[in-house]
């Protein structure tokens, strides 16, 4: 079973131990720009004067991810900051607000959110919610992500085939992602979309 959800919905969600204590809340949602796999979360303290915590929460230590809370077994589930590469400030960077470009150089719009596919064992970033640059298009669109993608703080590059799989609603989006990826996976599909410099 898999569930699609918006990464930004996770921000500020409390982190609760199985003993019922809220020990933190989600600050950043971090995913690998290479594989799209969700790496984990950085954390804030609870309470109105609390700042960021030194600890982080790797995805592998998450016990359950629900609409009301992110559940962990106990405080030992939190890791220190080294759990993530320490490259957070580097070439990856904040995705929301980035421009989405296709390989052929078309600007699709600006990223407003990242769609996560929550499965039993792992969670992947599978798409972006974008605000299209084309003003006649619907206010929100969803574009699928290839299995691997290139991201900088500035722009995201997608293959042109992604255009066919843009959806206006989340409902049909899961199927679109699967189809898009299987299309990319076909060996003969690759050379045609590789731009010749």
């Amino acid at each position, binding site marked *: 079973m898999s569930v699609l959800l918006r990464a930004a919905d996770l921000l500020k969600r409390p982190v609760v131990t*199985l*003993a*019922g204590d809220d020990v933190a809340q989600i600050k950043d949602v971090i995913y690998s720009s290479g594989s799209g796999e969700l790496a984990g979360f950085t954390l804030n303290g609870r309470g109105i004067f609390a700042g960021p915590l030194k600890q982080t929460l790797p995805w592998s230590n998450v016990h*359950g991810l*629900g*609409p009301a809370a992110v*559940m962990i077994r106990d405080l030992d589930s939190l890791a220190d900051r080294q759990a993530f590469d320490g490259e957070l400030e580097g070439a990856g960077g904040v995705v929301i607000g980035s421009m989405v470009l296709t390989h052929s150089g078309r600007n699709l719009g600006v990223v407003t959110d990242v769609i996560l596919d929550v499965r039993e064992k792992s969670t992947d970033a599978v798409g972006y919610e974008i605000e299209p640059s084309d003003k006649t298009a619907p206010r929100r669109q969803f574009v699928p992500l290839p299995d691997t993608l290139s991201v900088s703080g500035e722009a995201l590059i997608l293959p042109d085939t992604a255009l066919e799989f843009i959806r206006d609603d989340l409902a049909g989006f899961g199927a679109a992602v699967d189809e898009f990826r299987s299309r990319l996976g076909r060996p003969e599909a690759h050379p045609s979309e590789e731009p010749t410099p």
Partner: protein
Amino acid sequence: MIRFSDIAGNPVMDTSTATTVGKLEAPIIDPATHRIVGFRVKKSKGPGDVLLWASVAGLGPDAVTVSSAEQVSDPPPELKDRSGRKLDVLKRPVLTEHGHPLGKVKDVEFDPSDGRVTNLLLKDSFVDGGRLLGIGKYAVVVAG
């Protein structure tokens, strides 16, 4: 089975003097054993405000009886936090271990013979007491 709401506020009677030594305020539940291990008592005339389950002489529909006011005393160290107001189970939101909200605890149903919690009653559903995993300052966590 009885519900805590049936006995909440009932007097705690000292049978040696036939006087009221307090009123039942809240159940104290051990989430590990799924049992009521005692009650917090308000307006206590004893040395503390916790009445342990083992010290209850009788649990009737109209009163709880104890052998002396001394039975309402300070909790043992391991129950000090557990018996405090900050970890009361009533009115606390219930989460599943997967982070789904179920609602707030309205009432607790338990077996009067041994204190075993049979059900947590929520607004329009109930949760089997055996599913209890933890009672913390943020939520009651249940399995499943």
